[in-house]
């Protein structure tokens, strides 16, 4: 497995190769710390797990079956630690309703465990989930784990959800379970001659255990 270079190693390599000249008043150590500080990431805000989490979801990057109704959704992101390090051993478990707002609790439709790749990236092909009684906003549930890091449960929301009236920063409180506007992600609508689909990027940041 490829190991990401530490900042200090990268700086030293660059200096050794002549590709970097220190013009900063900071020392090598200071520069490394400043770089580290600039890469610090805030832990992804918490979101409720339940109530229909199901243990044992399959490992699959394709949740959408041929002919499933609803707008196709390409969901992806990178899993980081708060120090900016990518977590190549992360597991991202996602579950959501189908297009009509129905959770499959008898089987595993729209449920999967995704392994991050060598760059900490996960990606899944799904549909935009529906609304259902008892919850205001459309959402995808996440349970993210990585060795040495605290598990994260959170939820992803869609900026295009009509409930936000086009202004999620102002209106995210309309769903009382949304802890932060940060969880409401922009949606890119893309089209080709055959389909229109939504694309959402949702990076996840875990805190060290």
């Amino acid at each position, binding site marked *: 497995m490829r190991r990401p270079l530490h900042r200090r190693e990268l700086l030293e390599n660059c200096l050794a190769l002549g590709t970097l000249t220190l013009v900063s008043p900071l020392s090598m150590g200071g520069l490394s710390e400043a770089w580290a500080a600039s890469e610090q990431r805030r832990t992804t805000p*918490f979101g409720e797990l*339940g109530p*229909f*989490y199901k*243990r044992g979801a399959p490992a699959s990057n394709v949740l959408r079956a041929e002919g499933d109704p609803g707008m196709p959704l390409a969901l992806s992101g990178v899993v980081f630690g708060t120090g900016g390090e990518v977590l190549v051993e992360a597991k991202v478990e996602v579950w959501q309703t189908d297009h009509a707002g129905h*959770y499959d*609790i008898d089987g595993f439709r729209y449920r999967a465990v995704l392994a991050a790749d060598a760059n900490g990236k996960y990606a899944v092909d799904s549909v935009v989930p529906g609304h*259902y*009684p008892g919850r205001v906003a459309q959402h995808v549930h996440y349970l993210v784990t990585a060795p040495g890091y605290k598990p994260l449960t959170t939820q992803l929301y869609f900026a295009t959800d009509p409930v936000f009236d086009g202004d999620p920063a102002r209106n995210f409180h309309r769903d009382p379970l949304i802890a932060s506007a940060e969880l409401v992600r922009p949606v890119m609508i893309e089209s080709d001659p055959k389909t229109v689909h939504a694309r959402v990027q949702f990076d996840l940041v875990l805190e060290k255990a």
Partner: protein
Amino acid sequence: MRALALVLLCSAAAVRAETPVAQLPLPCDSKEQEIAPNGAAVAVRCADGTLQLLAVPSGRQLQHFPAEPKRTGIAFSPDGRQLAIGYWSGKVRVVATSGEGAAREWHASDHRIQGLRFLPGGELLVVPLGRDTQVWRLASAPRLLASLPSGFAEATAVALSADGKLLVAATGDTELRFYDTQSWKQVRSYRGLVLESFDVAFTHDQAQLLVGGADKQITVLDAATGALVRTLPRRDDVVGQLFPLNDGDSVVATYFDADGKRPPYLVLWSLRTATAQPLAGSREPTFTGLVGGELWFASSAQGGTLDIWKR
């Protein structure tokens, strides 16, 4: 720990047996109430966000709590003399239902309080959202006794044996954890469930533990060993609450549709025969719970009054 509004299913084969308990004037528009385990008080959640505590059967106001700060849940002590209130802010407040004496109030968590439960010894279980379950001793200033691990999610239901020695917690990670309440150490676990449990309860003789939840069935475990005894036949809907009755055989279960499209209903199970029959009623209850080992109901559907009855 989850309150559910219930609708009784009407059926020719249904069981009907109702005894009126009280009829109180309602001080506000309310669709949710909770009756104290001693049957002497009822907490009325008003549509305007306030909470009113009324004496049963007189209807006299005992306490009044404003709409702000926002509450998340309440719990009565087993003797009905104390009421604990959880808040969105992570604060917990414990008051005497009589309104006498000073309230105890403390900040238990940075997360909102999802659940509260008194233990017979006077301790209070506090379940903050997404966090471990806390055990607080309430004598004088509240003191944290223990923090019970709950995996990657909070406890969704807890049950305590009648002797108070064994606590079983169902957590969002679908595990059941058994704790010795003397040491607060985990003594065993059960990992045979794959979906969340919404209620756990000991049978009347304490020999078995009943578990119900999103898997739409009631799982029966041996309380002493945690081993699976059997599952009762699966139904089409999710199990919300379990009420084992004093006869040692009957269990009333509430069921609800996971999609929220059909009304919830009650079913009476016989553990001995593993057979079920709908439990019918003449009104739609806005509270269902055990009071002194009997199943009590309340309904505010008549408008202006709160009817309380038992079966």
